[in-house]
């Protein structure tokens, strides 16, 4: 529940006051790693690189077992549109390609490439920086970003180049840099803003050039004043403070969600089913911006990311720069955690992250953080579900303005048509409703169940329609073939009859003669 005063909530409800998103919560932030400089993680004995690390289609491997690869060499090609290619995180040998668990709530696996580092970490000679990117065509830069396999590093892993497409009808006037990081525990973007300020700002300039935007806003939550200071100092040094504005936002979860941040900054809501560019903005995460800088100005594709390793079971929590594909067990070992008895691993923050079933899962592009929690902590959170007392707190905190308790009832009762009518698919699964629920109802879980079932129903419906079409086509074909056959038979009969008659007649003639 929000701490805003009665007056403020009154103003909100009447649509007055400063623009801000509705709802939200104030969870304890636990940003224990915020003041600590990040470290570079050593190379693990083997890297496990999943061949699909983004929303969209899987990639096709380009190298074979036994091949030697360089760091940054493309090892899997993306054919479909919504996809991002995969690059070798370091130089070494491809040992095998087989199914391995990936960070996914199902605990299922996907084809992964196992690479044994050779210790040299040689960068692919084909990786060349575009130093004079300011003079370059935006489309070329976008293609480089696409080829570098960059996806949203804030957790959603949506291919970045799609957000950079330019639409003549919807020109982007503002680039928003999302330095909010509202998830508890996570501090990787915070550290990037402090340690790689120049790179982040140049990355932002590249993004502005690609979409031809004139303005930029860097949004930072007011619990990171040092990051804002560092950015401001860097901006004034580069004389950018006229075009770029640094905005300190009130600390409130989920301020960092793209939709909510855009509403807070511009007062505009992205129409349902549309993209941020429809309100003229481009929103990028800090980590993604740094990756864009690396890809353009350094020429290195996305092979490394900053990961927050934290949680109440980690002895030495810290931020690590980790190569994609490093097994989590190895990463946790850097932070002093070796024994995983009675410990639950979360991939991402505690509000939106997934619980994983094993520590032998690799870090992927979307790994903002990995948290190790004591089982007792988790059990105290996921308690017995009581009946809903309809207190309405979920509706108050919902940043999408849904009615979570009624929506969950529909999902629980398999009334999916009603759930859709209550805008189930608008839910961003931020978890505010479950967080405030006095009855401990796992509302988000019900929504995920409902979404999955609805998707399954849609798939089955489509398959049934296709099968029906094929079956009808087959029946028509058989009918046509039968008709053809009948016609041919008739024709043959019509043609052969006189001959037979003639033959018969000759025979008869013969007999007669």
């Amino acid at each position, binding site marked *: 529940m929000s701490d805003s005063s009665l007056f403020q909530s009154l103003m909100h409800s009447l649509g007055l006051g400063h623009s801000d998103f509705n709802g939200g919560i104030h969870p304890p932030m636990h940003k224990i790693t915020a003041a600590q400089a990040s470290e570079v993680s050593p190379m693990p004995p083997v890297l496990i690189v999943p061949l699909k690390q983004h929303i969209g289609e899987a990639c096709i491997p380009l190298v074979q077992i036994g091949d030697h690869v360089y760091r940054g060499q493309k090892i899997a090609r993306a054919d479909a549109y919504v996809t991002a290619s995969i690059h070798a995180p370091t130089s070494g040998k491809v040992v095998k390609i087989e199914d391995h668990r*990936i960070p*996914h*709530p*199902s605990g*299922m*696996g*996907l084809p992964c490439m196992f690479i044994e580092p050779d210790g040299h970490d040689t960068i692919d000679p084909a990786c060349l920086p575009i130093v004079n990117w300011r003079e370059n065509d935006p489309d070329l830069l976008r293609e480089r970003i696409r080829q570098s396999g960059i996806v949203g590093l804030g957790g959603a892993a949506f291919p970045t180049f799609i957000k950079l497409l330019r639409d003549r009808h919807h020109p982007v006037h503002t680039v928003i840099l999302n330095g909010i990081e509202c998830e508890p525990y996570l501090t990787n973007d915070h550290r990037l803003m402090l340690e790689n300020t120049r790179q982040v700002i140049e990355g932002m300039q590249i993004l502005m050039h690609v979409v031809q935007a004139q303005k930029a806003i860097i949004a930072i939550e007011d619990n990171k004043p040092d990051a804002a200071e560092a950015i401001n100092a860097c901006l004034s040094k580069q004389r950018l403070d006229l075009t770029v504005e640094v905005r300190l936002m009130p600390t409130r979860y989920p301020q960092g969600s793209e939709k909510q941040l855009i509403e807070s900054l511009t007062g505009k809501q992205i129409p349902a089913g549309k993209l941020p560019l429809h309100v003229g903005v481009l929103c990028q995460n800090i980590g993604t911006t740094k990756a864009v800088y690396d890809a353009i100005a350094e020429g290195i594709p996305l092979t490394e990311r900053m990961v927050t390793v934290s949680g109440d079971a980690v002895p030495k929590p810290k931020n690590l720069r980790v190569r994609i594909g490093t097994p989590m067990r190895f990463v946790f070992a850097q932070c002093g955690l070796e024994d995983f008895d009675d410990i639950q691993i979360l991939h991402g923050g505690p509000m939106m992250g997934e619980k994983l079933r094993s520590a032998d899962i690799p870090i992927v592009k979307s790994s903002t953080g990995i948290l190790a929690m004591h089982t007792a902590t988790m059990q105290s959170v996921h308690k*017995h*579900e*009581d*009946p809903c007392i309809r207190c309405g707190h979920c509706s108050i905190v919902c940043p999408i303005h849904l009615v979570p308790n009624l929506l969950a009832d529909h999902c*629980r*009762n*398999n009334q999916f048509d009603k759930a859709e009518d209550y805008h189930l698919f608008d839910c961003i699964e931020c978890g505010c409703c479950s967080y405030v629920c006095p009855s401990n*109802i*796992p509302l988000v*879980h*019900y929504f*995920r*169940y409902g*979404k*999955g*079932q609805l*998707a*399954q129903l849609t*798939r*089955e419906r489509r*398959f*049934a*329609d*296709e*099968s*029906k079409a*094929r*079956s009808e*086509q*087959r029946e028509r074909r058989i009918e046509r073939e039968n008709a053809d056959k009948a016609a041919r038979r008739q024709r043959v009969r019509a043609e052969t009859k006189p001959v037979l008659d003639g033959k018969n007649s000759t025979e008869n003639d013969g007999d007669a003669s």
Partner: protein
Amino acid sequence: MAILSLGGFALVAGIILAIATRAFHIEGDPIADKIEDMLPQTQCGQCGYPGCRPYAEAVASEVAEINNCVPGGERTMIAIADLMGVEPKAIEAEEAIPMIAFVREDECIGCTLCIKACPVDAIVGAPKQYHTIITDHCTGCTLCIDPCPVDCIDMLQKPELIEHWSWPLPDTQRSRIGHQRRESHQHV
């Protein structure tokens, strides 16, 4: 006067009805169409009818029972029961795991008999060539198994895709009780 006015009213009503019949005329049997839309279109014939359309027509004309569609399972049966306004019936056959057919190509002799049997044209191949089943098109109806003279077609479990995985219901007592109650209502 009374007779006249009543007669006039009857006439007007009759005309309106006649126009309405014309205006809202629907071709075919709308109930059969609706039922057909609910069926999984596997064309498997397990209901005893040669395809989904004939079964839908039989159910619509109340010749066939509503619980004969095996691949559709309980969900389809309940949807049909709702539409027809009848009580749901238990399904005798056990709900099967989704399967697809698979040809062991080294044993296939290329006889094309399975191609002829497939109701959705999901098998490709020419005479004397190996036949292959298009896994995305196979409905798992098993109609190709019997015609095969060398018995080289297996039914395999449909591979589970990570993209198609969906969250189960929360494992809480409340969601379990709700489902148990619903099921006991349906089977009464």
